[in-house]
C-alpha cells in the first residue's frame, strides 16, 4: 500500500530579512498511512506549520523529498484540504459563497457549487447562516465554515494547523468531536498540528513529537484508544493518562530546550 504522505530527509531553510539562513526543519522523515489521523506536537517554533506548508505544496523543501500518494509534491498538490490557524475564510464572501469557493475554483457551475455548499453548511451545523458574512459569526462558527470549505473538495489529505487554538474550552471540545465525526465519514488522512498534547492524543491514531527547532521527528507513538471517541470523556481513561505520560516525558525535554533558548534570546 502506498503511504498517503511521505517525507524523506526533508530540510527547510528560510532566508531571514537580516540575510541569515534559518533552518526550520532538518532531515525530517515522516510517513502517514491513508485514512490515518496523525497529530504533530512540538514546542513553539519547531517547524510544525512548516511541515504542513511542505505537504500542501505551498512551500518547496530545500532538501529531501515530499510525496503524496507516491507522487512528488511540486506545487499545490491535488486533493489537499488545509484549515489554517488564523481565520482564512474570505471576509467579503457570505458563508454560502465561502463554502462554494472550492468547487467554483475547480470549474463547477455556480448553481451546483451552491447546492453542494448548502449540504456542507448543514453538515457542519450552520444551516440558516448561509447569507451571513464572517464578521457576523462567532469564532467557532467561522471554524465550521473553514471546515466545510475544505471538506467540500473531498480532500484525501486534510492538513490542520492548530485550528482550534483560538476557541474557548467548551467550543473546542465540541468542535473536536465534530471533526472526528466528519473525519470518520470520510476516508481522508489528517495531519493535525497542535501544541496541546491532550488534544493530540484524544483525536489521533498516531502522535509525532518534533524536536525544538530545527525540527525533526524525535519519536512517534501509536494511540490505541478505541473509536468512536468522545474527546471530553476519553481524557479521563487510565490508558489515556499512560499514553500522555509516556509522550510528555519526550516532549518535556524539547519544550524545555525551546524555552531556555527563548529566554536567552530575550535576554
Amino acid at each position, binding site marked *: 500500500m502506498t503511504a498517503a504522505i511521505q517525507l524523506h530527509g526533508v530540510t527547510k531553510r528560510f532566508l531571514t530579512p537580516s540575510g541569515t539562513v534559518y533552518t526550520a526543519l532538518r532531515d525530517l522523515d515522516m510517513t502517514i498511512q491513508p485514512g490515518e489521523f496523525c497529530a504533530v506536537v512540538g514546542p513553539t517554533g519547531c517547524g510544525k506549520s512548516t511541515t504542513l506548508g511542505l505537504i500542501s505544496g*505551498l512551500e518547496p523543501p530545500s532538501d529531501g523529498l515530499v510525496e503524496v500518494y507516491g507522487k512528488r509534491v511540486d506545487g499545490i498538490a491535488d486533493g*489537499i*484540504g488545509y484549515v*489554517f490557524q*488564523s481565520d482564512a475564510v474570505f471576509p467579503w464572501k457570505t458563508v454560502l459563497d465561502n463554502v462554494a*469557493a472550492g468547487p467554483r475554483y475547480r470549474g463547477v457551475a455556480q448553481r451546483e457549487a451552491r447546492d453542494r455548499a448548502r449540504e456542507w453548511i448543514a453538515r457542519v451545523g450552520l444551516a440558516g447562516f448561509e447569507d451571513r458574512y464572517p464578521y457576523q459569526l462567532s469564532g467557532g462558527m467561522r471554524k465550521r465554515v473553514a471546515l466545510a470549505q*475544505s471538506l467540500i*473538495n473531498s480532500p484525501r489529505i486534510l492538513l490542520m494547523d492548530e485550528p482550534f487554538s483560538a476557541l474557548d474550552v467548551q467550543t473546542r471540545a465540541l468542535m473536536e468531536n465534530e471533526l472526528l465525526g466528519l473525519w470518520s465519514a470520510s476516508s481522508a488522512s489528517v495531519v493535525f498540528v497542535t501544541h496541546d498534547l491532550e488534544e493530540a492524543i484524544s483525536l489521533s491514531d498516531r502522535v509525532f513529537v518534533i524536536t525544538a527547532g530545527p525540527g525533526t521527528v524525535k519519536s512517534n507513538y501509536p494511540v490505541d484508544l478505541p473509536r468512536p471517541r468522545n474527546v471530553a470523556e476519553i481524557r479521563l481513561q487510565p490508558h489515556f493518562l499512560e499514553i500522555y505520560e509516556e509522550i510528555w516525558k519526550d516532549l518535556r525535554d524539547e519544550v524545555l530546550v525551546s524555552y531556555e533558548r527563548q529566554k536567552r534570546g530575550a535576554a
Partner: protein
Amino acid sequence: MRHVDTQAATAPAASPRRNRARRYQLQVIGLRIVLAVVILGAWELGARVSDCNTPGGVCIVDKFFWSQPSDIAQKLWTWFTQGTDLGPIWDQVLVTMEETVGGFVVGSVLGIIFGVALGRNRLLADVLSPYIKGANAIPRVVVGALFAVSLGLDIKAKIATASVLVFFVVFFNAFQGVREVDRNLIANARILGANNRRLTTEIVIPSALSWIVASLHTSFGLALVGAVVGELFGATQGVGELIYLSKNLFDTAGVFAGMALLAAMALVAEALITALENRLIRWRPPVATETRI
C-alpha cells in the same frame, strides 16, 4: 405568548435610550446652526459697522476685500434667478461637475489598474517605482498649465488635470492594498484551487477595495481641485472660471459665492461616495459612528 412578553419587557428599557440618542442628535444639529449663525453674524455685523473708506474710521471687516454674507447670498440669488455673466448657473455647475467626475473616473480607473498590476507584479513594481515616486514628487497642479496648452480650453484639459491628481492617490492606495492582502487568504484560495486570475479578482481586489474606497473620499476633492485649477488656467465655462472672472472684477462676493457652490458640490459627492462605500463593502463590520447609543 412568551415571545410577546419579552418584547413588551424590553420595550420600555429601550425607549429612554432611544430618546436620549435623539435628544443628543437634536443637540448636535442645534449647535451646528448656532455656530453658523455666530460666525456669519459676526462677519455680517463686522462688515456693516465698519467704515473703511474714510480715514480714521473703524475698519473691522473691509467689505471690499472680504465681502459679507448678505452680499454673497444676494450674489448666489442673482446667479440662480438671472444667470451669470457666462450664462445660466446650472450650466456652470454642470460643466465643472462633468470635468470633476470625468477626471475622478479616469484617474481612479487608471490608478486601480496600475496599482493592482504593480502590486501583483514584483518586477514591474521594482522597475517603475523610482519613476512613479519622482512623478509624485512634482507639484502636480502645474500639469494643468501644460494641458491647457496642449489640449485646449475645453473639457479635455480639465479632465486630464483632475485625473492626474486623482491617479496618484488611488494608485498608491491600490498598490498598498494589494501588498497588504492577508497571506493566509491567498494560501487558502490557492489550496482551494484558485488560479492566478481568480486570485486577483476574488481575493486581491476585494481585499484591496477597502483601501481603494477610502482613497476615493480624498481623491474626489482632488478631482474638484484639478477641474477648478484647469478652469483657472483657461476656460470659457465652469465655476472655476466664474471665480476667476469675479476676481478680475474685484467682485469678492462672486469669489465667495463660487466657493460656496464648490463646497456644496463636494458635500453632495461625499455623500454619494459614502453610499457607494457602504454598498461595496457590505461585508465589513459596521464601524462605530459618531452617534453612540
